[in-house]
């Protein structure tokens, strides 16, 4: 039994290319050119899933993006899993594997179905809030159960094998939608020479022209589509993007387009090809030609498989050669839906009847149907259908839409397909993404896009223009206007001739009455994806939810991936009637990006794996790799953390590295420090204003440590700055602070003190910096340099120029370890050669490379802070005990001075930096541990500070820490306690933060 519903002819499919695919484990066959939905319908698959809340069987309803039920999981392997695929938008390919997501354990026998059917009242609207929120601690359990039962699809557990990327596009005119209006707009704009992008979400351009009964210039509509596309393809500045959904309209005409480049070819892209692309488009003008979605009618049991949108039936018949049934019953409020019955009849199938809610319809389509012998039942509608997994009959009764009453018992008519049409809702989503409020038009019973802040035009059905001739003219006019506003002279071209016909207005029917009240009638579904019924909306309004946004949240109307495509208008009309207000008074909810789901792959693009974030390397990185370094992330930098020898862990390696520096000499790659070259006659004055300490008297050849504060008086960076010449300084910053310090200097120079003659230039990447530290560093450096290293010729806190390892170098005698140290700076291109020469010469001195961890331990032993570790933006220099670094008498009120003299900053009981010495010298306090004075107090304890840095000192052979403690500077000698998560408590003595060589003799030799 293959393709039982495939018509013997017609459709835009390739019958010579059969394609096998599977759905829920069963194999089927379709044809090239099918969507998955078309192929499922061709094979008579009625049930594609279970509904979200009531777990009722559901079938395919629509033929496009608005499909609420056939939201499937695709993929034959774990890595290729894609959730949330609309079967109506997925092209069929050979070997496609799809399964339902809603239905556990299976779509045909469903656990939740029993709940749903037996206890329909068990899950009223707001069921999340009412049923599952209490008791709160059970929510996690409920959530797991609900998710599994509701079947929201699942992400793959293995890495996606495909590649994705972005393409940044710029154009004069972006046309969204490749139907009649969009094609006409693109042609008009393209002919002007403007850069035009035409994006369409379907497999083929053409929109409804591909299944239209209309003719253009006397030829089939698809001929005109082909001709228009050929012309567009020949324009060098026109970009055609098929399979490309414009899913977001962002500020200043920035739109994002999700293009599926290879999804129609297979679940994995062919080798070398990008699977999906996210176009990031900046458009001077946007033409929205997004069309309209047909509005289904809301009647009892309108969710049973076999209830479809009228237009979708036509699409399947004419575009795919598929008849989703045998006996059609059409229920309509408008003329246009009559074409469905005519298409059905031409396909050789039975039209049971047409129920028209209007009393006396006489439009051209209507008369054509009558002339062909079709039974038209006026003033009536399908009020209820019957069937469990497929419609078997529908009841047609006389209705009074105004009174919401049924005026006759009606007749049950046997049928297996009910097509309904309640009118057409313009697809206003994109027009509303930025807050533009749609406007209600009573003449067409629809919301159209309202005023937008963006440079956009709307054309065609989205504008409320429905007749084909008018749609083409509207599109053409929009294309001309958009191009000319973008600066291109566009002229009107010849438009194809359309056979005009008389159409009568449609009738407002947002809910079909039933002989029982809404609350008691069989369920009348408004939002199929979220299982929202007319009764649920009425209940929401009765319970006091009056704002459309509240009704939405209470009922879930228009939630999730559906974004109210089918149910929104009916739902808010029902709410409005229930509240006794008009539809425009009710208004619509906000439509939000994304219009349809976008894969995470497309969102990530190339920014994943190794390319997730830039990794920055120093010029010495290769040596670190070859010498077994473990690396630490410092900002984006990869810095050597420690250099383990065979069998060493972090602790052992760092202990060894620390002792080597204290006992002989170590070498560190310090290239990541920020470095800023400062030139100009006012450079010194500028330093006086941005540093806390004084720079007036720093001589050429000398260097000085400085603290930087923000205006609030809190420390935000530090570093050593050297005076290279009277008007020339070299500033160093923390590794992480380099960029923000440069921006900081610039903001003050550009906005506050432009009169100061000074320029700042980053030289971070130009210089590589190698730090030699330890008592033997002088001896070692002497072997590779021509600089006089005599302690008087080259004292502490000064710098010299000369050759190091045969390369010109600036050497700074500064120290972050407390040992005799030299920082050797050379042009980065030559750094590795210099480093290798130093390392070779250092062998006999026991030179030991060390990493950031050892550097941290050594500086902490000396009580040197690390900004960002020992400070957190709430710490003043005085809090750090660094009052010696504050120029209290500097004439200019430098940045931070006024701030740190605020009343609060002067309080004695502020958190201040102290040293901590655990009573048990083997216990290392965890960094971040909270401190208390009394460990016996009851919880919550009064916390008095926290540990900022904590290590085991190899040189001193005991653990130690730095901490911020309330009033700590006056509590030296007292005890604090760190109660830990495991219940243990570490006791420590408050001491000076300088643990090692407090007089600084070792660095000053």
């Amino acid at each position, binding site marked *: 039994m293959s393709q039982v519903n495939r018509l013997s002819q017609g459709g835009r499919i390739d019958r010579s290319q059969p394609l096998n695919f599977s759905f829920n484990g069963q194999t089927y066959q379709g044809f090239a050119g099918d969507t998955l939905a078309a192929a499922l319908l061709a094979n008579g698959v009625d049930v594609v899933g279970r509904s979200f809340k009531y777990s009722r069987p559901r079938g395919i309803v629509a033929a496009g993006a608005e499909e609420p039920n056939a939201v499937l999981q695709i993929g034959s392997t774990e890595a290729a899993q894609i959730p949330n695929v609309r079967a109506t938008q997925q092209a069929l390919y050979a070997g496609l594997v799809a399964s339902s997501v809603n239905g556990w354990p299976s779509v045909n026998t469903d656990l939740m179905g029993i709940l749903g059917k037996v206890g329909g009242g068990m899950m009223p609207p707001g069921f999340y809030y009412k049923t599952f929120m209490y008791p709160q601690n059970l929510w996690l359990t409920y959530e797991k159960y609900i998710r599994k039962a509701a079947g929201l699809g699942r992400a793959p557990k293995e890495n996606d094998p495909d590649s994705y990327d972005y393409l940044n596009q710029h154009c004069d005119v972006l046309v969204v939608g490749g139907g009649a209006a969009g094609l006409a707009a693109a042609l008009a704009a393209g002919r002007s020479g403007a850069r035009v992008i035409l994006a369409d979400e379907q497999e083929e351009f053409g929109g409804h022209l591909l299944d239209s009964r209309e003719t253009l210039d006397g030829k089939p509509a698809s001929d005109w589509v082909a001709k228009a596309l050929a012309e567009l393809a020949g324009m060098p500045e026109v970009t055609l993007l098929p399979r490309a959904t414009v899913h977001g309209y*962002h*500020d*200043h*005409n*920035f739109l994002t387009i999700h293009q599926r480049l290879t999804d129609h070819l297979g679940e994995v892209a062919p080798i070398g090809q990008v699977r999906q692309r996210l176009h*990031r488009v*900046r458009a001077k003008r946007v033409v929205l030609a997004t069309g309209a979605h047909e509005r289904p009618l809301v009647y009892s049991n309108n969710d049973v498989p076999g209830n479809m949108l009228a237009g979708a039936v036509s699409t399947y018949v004419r575009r795919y050669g598929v008849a989703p049934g045998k006996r059609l019953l059409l229920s309509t409020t408008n003329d246009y839906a009559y074409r469905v019955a005519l298409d059905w009849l031409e396909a050789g199938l039975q039209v049971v009847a047409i129920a028209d809610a209007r009393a006396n319809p006489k439009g051209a389509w209507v008369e054509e149907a009558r002339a062909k012998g079709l039974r038209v039942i006026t003033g009536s509608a399908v009020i209820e259908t019957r069937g469990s997994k497929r419609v078997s009959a529908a009841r047609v009764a006389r209705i009074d839409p105004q009174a919401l009453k049924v005026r006759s018992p009606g007749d049950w008519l046997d049928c297996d397909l009910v097509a309904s049409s309640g009118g057409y809702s313009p697809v206003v989503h994109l027009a509303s993404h930025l807050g533009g409020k749609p406007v209600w038009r009573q003449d067409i019973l629809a919301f159209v896009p309202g005023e937008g*802040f963006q440079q956009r035009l709307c054309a065609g059905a989205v504008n409320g223009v429905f007749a084909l001739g008018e749609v083409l003219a509207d599109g053409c006019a929009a294309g001309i206007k958009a191009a000319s506003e973008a600066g291109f002279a566009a002229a009107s071209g010849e438009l194809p001739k359309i056979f005009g016909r008389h159409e009568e207005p449609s009738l407002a029917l947002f809910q079909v009455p039933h002989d029982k009240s809404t609350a008691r009638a069989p369920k009348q579904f408004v939002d199929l994806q979220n299982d929202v019924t007319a009764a649920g909306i009425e209940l929401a309004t009765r319970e006091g939810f009056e704002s459309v946004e509240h009704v939405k949240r209470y009922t879930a109307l228009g939630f999730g991936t559906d974004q109210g495509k089918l149910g929104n208008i009916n739902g808010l009309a029902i709410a409005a009637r229930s509240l006794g207000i008009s539809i425009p008074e009710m208004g619509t909810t906000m439509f939000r990006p994304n219009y349809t789901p976008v894969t995470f792959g497309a969102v990530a693009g190339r920014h994943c794996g190794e390319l997730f974030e830039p990794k920055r390397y120093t010029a010495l990185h290769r040596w670190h790799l070859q010498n077994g370094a473990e690396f630490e992330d410092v900002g984006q930098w990869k810095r050597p953390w420690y250099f383990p020898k065979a069998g060493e862990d972090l602790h052992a390696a760092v202990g060894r590295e620390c002792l080597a520096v204290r006992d002989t000499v170590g070498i560190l790659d310090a290239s990541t420090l920020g470095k800023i070259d400062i030139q100009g006659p006012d450079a010194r004055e500028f330093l006086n204003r941005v540093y806390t300490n004084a720079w007036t008297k720093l001589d050429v050849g000398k260097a000085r440590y400085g603290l930087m504060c923000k*205006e*609030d008086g809190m420390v935000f960076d530090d570093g050593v700055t050297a005076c290279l010449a009277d008007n020339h300084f070299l500033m160093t910053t923390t590794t992480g602070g380099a960029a923000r310090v440069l*921006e900081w200097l*610039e*903001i003050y120079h*550009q*906005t*506050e003190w*432009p009169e100061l003659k000074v320029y700042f230039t980053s030289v971070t990447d130009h210089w590589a910096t190698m730090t030699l530290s330890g008592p033997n560093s002088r001896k070692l450096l002497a072997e590779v340099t021509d600089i006089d290293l005599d302690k008087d010729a080259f004292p502490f806190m000064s710098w010299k120029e000369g050759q190091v390892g045969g390369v010109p170098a600036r050497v700074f005698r500064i120290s972050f370890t407390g040992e005799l140290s030299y920082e050797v700076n050379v042009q980065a291109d030559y750094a590795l050669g210099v480093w290798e020469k130093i390392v070779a010469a250092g062998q006999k001195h026991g030179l030991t490379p060390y990493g950031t961890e050892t550097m941290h331990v050594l500086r902490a032993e000396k009580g040197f802070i690390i900004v960002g570790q020992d400070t957190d933006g709430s710490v003043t220099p005085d809090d750090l005990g660094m009052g010696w670094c504050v120029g209290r008498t500097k004439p200019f*009120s430098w940045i931070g*001075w*006024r*701030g740190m003299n*605020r*009343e609060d900053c002067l309080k004695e009981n502020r958190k201040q930096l102290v040293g901590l010495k655990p009573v048990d010298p083997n216990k290392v306090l965890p960094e971040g541990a909270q401190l208390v004075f009394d460990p016996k107090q009851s919880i919550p304890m009064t916390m008095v500070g926290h540990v900022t840095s904590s290590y085991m000192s190899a040189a001193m052979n005991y653990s130690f820490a730095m901490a911020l403690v309330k009033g700590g500077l006056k509590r030296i000698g007292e005890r604090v306690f760190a109660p830990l998560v495991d219940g243990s408590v570490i006791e420590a003595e408050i001491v000076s933060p300088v643990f090692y060589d407090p007089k600084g003799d070792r660095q000053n030799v």
Partner: protein
Amino acid sequence: MLHIFCPHCGELRSEEEFHAKGQAHIPRPLDPNACTDEEWGDYIFFRDNPRGIHHELWVHAAGCRQYFNVTRHTVTYEILETYKIGERPSVTEASVAAKKAVDQGVTA
């Protein structure tokens, strides 16, 4: 993604090239030491949050590294002008209100 005209580069550029630096036209007091704690607190902590016209400081971080000012509408996100440091805005809450009054006067 805003599209911002850099007055130094003379071009519209994408927002990602810029960093927003908060409200514009907040000069540092010439004599901070003369400020009371309250005045100083106002200077460093308090900023306007208008519904409508807002003057902002931005920096073209990935481009010319220059700071400049932006007049932006906080409801529509429309950028009404950009201008260099040291210049005054031509579009202000007052100028918009005045224009509105004139427009209404003309049509009334």
